[in-house]
């Protein structure tokens, strides 16, 4: 990963690589790039990485590399995405109307309590699973099938539309709209951002104020704000483990782990700064957070201090 590298420096290094590979690049361009490399040790480091990349690419015989790298890798998947792109019409500003509606979702038609999980089957056969503390409204009309996710997290497995005219299937969060076709994906409304993980099919994101909507393919996940969409990353199966009642941790910081478990537990669950960096690995049952706490305490060097009849739990060093 790009540990230690400023995203902006990598952007600039990529820009220089692009300019210098242009057949119209001039000696003046090369000199300008050299000045950029000298301007900052971080630039020089990024450029060393760029040169390593050039060596790797330069060592590949094109007669072998082109068929291998240019193969129709996910032929089925890519073709499906192409078809999807053609089917995706411009997204209307449907979510704008929703934004002024109840942001807290107190009036939402479908709600789950903290620690609760529930399955819904919608009018078109689409199946939706609501995770803990979630609020969802369903608005189907002649033009679209729209889900409004006010809070929490959902898994969607869309059904083909049986209406005479195909209606697009969309999910709106505070950060924007996602449009799906023949797809299984999870959407999570976090503070100030939306998390999307695509298990099957593809989903196009339209951030509220951004442009150039990207398509997230099967096997990818991303995070977006109202303005920006993060580059797609490989799908982490831990992202949808909640649908099977599990929380999967792979060397997760205890502080992050505790924040995750707290979503499923009424009351307050926090950890002391002294144990925040401890790493936790394993599979934990989210439907029984008392058991999760027992597992932590019996496996790691922490103990649970409880107050207010277990409504307030603090994990501290043992």
């Amino acid at each position, binding site marked *: 990963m790009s540990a230690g590298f400023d995203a902006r420096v990598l952007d600039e290094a990529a820009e220089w690589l692009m300019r210098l590979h*242009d057949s119209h690049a001039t000696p003046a361009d090369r000199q300008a790039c050299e000045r950029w490399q000298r301007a900052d040790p971080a630039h020089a480091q990024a450029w060393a990485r760029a040169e390593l990349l050039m060596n790797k690419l330069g060592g590949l015989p094109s007669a*072998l590399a082109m068929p291998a790298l240019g193969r129709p890798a996910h032929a089925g998947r890519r073709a499906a995405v192409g078809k999807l792109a053609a089917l995706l019409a411009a997204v209307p500003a449907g979510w704008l109307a929703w934004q002024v509606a109840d942001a807290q979702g107190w009036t939402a038609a479908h709600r789950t309590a903290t620690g609760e999980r529930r399955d819904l089957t919608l009018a078109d056969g689409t199946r939706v699973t609501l995770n803990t503390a979630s609020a969802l409204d369903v608005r189907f009309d002649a033009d679209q099938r729209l889900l409004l996710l006010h809070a929490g997290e959902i898994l969607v497995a869309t059904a083909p539309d049986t209406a005479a005219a195909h209606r697009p299937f969309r999910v709106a969060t505070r950060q924007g709209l996602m449009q799906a076709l023949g797809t299984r994906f999870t959407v999570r409304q976090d503070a100030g951002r939306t998390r999307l993980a695509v298990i099957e099919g593809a989903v196009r994101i339209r951030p509220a104020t951004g442009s150039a909507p990207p398509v997230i393919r099967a096997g990818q996940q991303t995070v977006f704000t109202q303005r920006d969409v993060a580059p797609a990353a490989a799908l982490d199966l831990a992202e949808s483990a909640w649908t099977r009642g599990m929380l999967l941790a792979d060397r997760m910081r205890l502080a992050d782990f505790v924040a995750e478990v707290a979503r499923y537990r009424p009351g307050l669950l926090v950890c002391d700064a002294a144990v925040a960096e401890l790493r936790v690995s394993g599979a934990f049952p989210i439907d029984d957070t008392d058991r999760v706490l027992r597992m932590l305490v019996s496996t790691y060097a922490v103990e649970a201090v409880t107050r207010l009849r277990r409504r307030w739990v603090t994990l501290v060093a043992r």
Partner: protein
Amino acid sequence: MHTAELPSYSDHSEVAVLYADHHGWLQGWLRRKLGNASDAADLAQDTFVRLLAARQPEVIVQPRAYLTRIAQNILVNWYQRQALERAYLDALAAMPEALAPSPEERLLILQTLHEIDAMLDALKPPARRAFLLSQIDGMKYEDIARELGVSLVTVKRYMQQGFRGCLALMA
């Protein structure tokens, strides 16, 4: 505390215990996914190698669910690598003997191909195509624009995205 029902593994010697307890089960699980015993054996091995390679000693709660999750990630990656290796072997077979690289070179090239393939994974098909036409086939941006039926500005954006993706993922 229910310590008895919660086996945990806190260092590499205990990965050996994990191995003894669950290796056969994991291999069976992978064999059902792959329908093939020898690949299943390899991937089960990879799964444990990944555990051993973990930088710090691990404590693992509910080992089977955890192993399955690591194995699933390895499996997804494996399918992708298989597709690349098949395409590579086909290209090697189609090459005149005199031009083909030596066996050592073949392996080195394959390793580099795997690396580059992973770096380009997040690119959309046209951007990937543009990047390969420039960096592997040595085509000029103008010619790539004509070939793909897009503007020169778009080709430059694709190139920048490609380089950016590679730089971000280089170890």
